[in-house]
């Protein structure tokens, strides 16, 4: 892992490289420098929760939703009562040949 990279020589410019946890008028802010990431890593059955919501689960739901939407775009969803009624009406007006 990169954590084990060689120590930064004293005096090198690192001022903007270091992540910070800061409070700003009572707001809690986590910030990183340019090209740096904020990462949430779960392991085993660990969770990240945001105000009682399971972040990992919800993020996976986004993809499920996306898949479902694509499926509906291609194959349609359920049949709306409006269409069902109209089809039934037409059905009664036609006869089987």
């Amino acid at each position: 892992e990169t954590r084990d990279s060689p120590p930064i020589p004293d005096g090198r410019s690192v001022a903007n490289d270091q992540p910070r946890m800061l409070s700003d008028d009572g707001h809690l802010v986590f910030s990183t420098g340019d090209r740096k990431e904020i990462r949430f890593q779960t392991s085993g059955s660990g969770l990240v929760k945001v105000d009682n919501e399971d972040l990992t689960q919800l993020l996976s739901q986004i993809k499920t939703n996306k898949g479902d939407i694509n499926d509906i775009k291609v194959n349609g969803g359920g049949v709306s009562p409006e269409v069902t009624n109209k089809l039934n009406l037409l059905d009664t007006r036609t006869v089987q040949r």
Partner: protein
Amino acid sequence: LHKQWIPDTNYENKTNWDKQAVPCGNDIVQFPAQRRVSVFVETTHAVREMKLPVDGEFILNSGAGFYVVSGKDPGCGAGVTTQFRDSESLQWFNPALWQAAATLEDLQRGDFLFSVHDESVPCQYDDVVFKARSSFGVDTSSSQASIPVKSVSVLGEKFDRQSEFSKYLSSRSGQLQFRGSSVVTVGNQECGDPSGCDCGNSVHHQRICNTVTCASLSCKKPLLPAGHCCSVCGAIITIHYAAGFNLQTYRQRVHQLFLTLPKYKSIQLGMSKVFKSQRLMGVIPFGTTPEIQVLAVEGEKGSQSEGLAWDIINDARSHGSNLGITGADFQASSGSSSDQT
């Protein structure tokens, strides 16, 4: 010269905690709500609970961070409530909070220079250093709008251009680290005069001396050096110079020739350019002449400094023409002076 700020607001510095110990995983850590502080975190720490200030920051060195444990943190004790100490009042113009060195290498080696109080605080042509891997809070309040210096290094980054340093000062870290009414500005020229330059701190002399407590003295005639807040025991050697005099070279010469001698090891020696007002017939001022004040300070008695003063005077008399020195005299707290030969 390089002037380095000594205090820090590092998490690992046990003197920053009221219990004189770095908190561990059974402790409750309290930052006072209104304490505006930038904390540098060097390594990883367990916490039980930490109340952050309403405005503040934690700078996380690579590998640094916080974690919690289930149950008790072994080796931490029963757990206490510990407070981060209030150091908001640490003043830029407190000479005890700076250390000076000729070079950055000397600074890292711990090879520090002694100077009068006015010059212990950064001069207008100095490089100011706040230690890398460290944060701090400094109160820059003074009667002046700005405090000009050559450069400022913060968190390992050296600022010598005002536009970039202004940007840093307006950042969150900058605002937490530099407080007070005066604005530190960088980009000042370094001292271009080989014979030395005026530090520029005489305007702050009173403010500087307000932070200094003077020691009691037992010498016969304590001396009050220019730019210093306290009378001292020791000697003041005055060097009159002409073209060709180089203060830095002369400082090194005196240190190598004399201060390395065991008999002088308790002496602190500082050199500075001072401006002595000239008086017509000893009464009417008509101008100032620059001269070099060599201050030798030695404990409460000052018994060896008279010998050092003679060594310096004799060196100046025999090698003065090569060094650009035109004359030298001294006064010692023992009562003797170079006039009495």
